[in-house]
């Protein structure tokens, strides 16, 4: 990561290409006016992305290619924990054991931390409420959810995204 902030032309061109293709697929109407507006909005998006430092946090392509595998695993986790939370909500005694768990993560990049935090929030029963340096504060609804977090499975899965090679 260079100290002076300059995005590489290849990254910008790649993002522009993705944006243009998505626009073309989305709109489906190919009149000069609409295409012009599309190109304009794509360029505007690129400008905003550069202003907000998007390219500083850009993920390597291999990370993107590994995402679907992790999503598949996450889907299973979401189904499991959803059924658990639904059971807790619907049982008359409301057997909740709220608990705070502090996770220390080895993720170094910001995007890695964001992915980990979002994965935890996506599975019902656990919500990331604070990220600071390399610590994530997670609120759990049940003891089972807290135990799942402590097993660090999600962290391993996210770490696997960023392995070099």
């Amino acid at each position: 990561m260079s100290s002076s902030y300059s995005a590489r032309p290849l990254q910008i061109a790649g993002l522009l290409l993705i944006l243009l293709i998505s626009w073309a697929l989305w709109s489906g109407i190919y009149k000069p006016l609409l295409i012009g507006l599309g190109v304009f909005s794509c360029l505007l998006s690129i400008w905003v992305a550069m202003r907000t430092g998007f390219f500083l946090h850009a993920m390597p392509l291999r990370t993107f290619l590994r995402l679907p595998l992790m999503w598949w695993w996450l889907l299973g986790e979401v189904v499991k924990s959803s059924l658990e939370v639904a059971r807790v909500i619907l049982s008359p005694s409301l057997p909740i054991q709220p608990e705070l768990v502090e996770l220390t993560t080895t993720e170094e990049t910001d995007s890695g931390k964001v992915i980990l935090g979002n994965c935890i929030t996506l599975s019902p029963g656990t919500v990331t409420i604070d990220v600071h340096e390399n610590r994530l504060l997670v609120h759990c609804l049940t003891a089972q959810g807290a135990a799942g977090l402590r097993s660090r499975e999600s962290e391993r899965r996210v770490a696997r995204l960023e392995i070099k090679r």
Partner: protein
Amino acid sequence: MIELVLDILSWVLLCTGGAFVLIGGIGALRLPGFYTRLHAASLTETMATILIFAGMILQAGLSLAAIKLFAIMVFLLLTAPTASYALANAALQSGLRPVAQREGEDA
């Protein structure tokens, strides 16, 4: 025949999704406190989203609409936890401490 199977499958998915929205709503009313209610909301925004969109994609069949629906689902699943985090973190920053019935590794 395949039409019928797909219809039944998407019907099941849509109804289960609706049921999860309902359960999430019940949970938001029943659970005590802010942070626990957040969990009920996350039931609606993940499980119900996935089920309902899966049902709609089956209805759309193999078409551009199905890809669009899938993309919308992905966007929702990316932004929902971010919104949850913003809400929870705002509550934490403004001094609302989560009440733990059993103290974990408290911060």
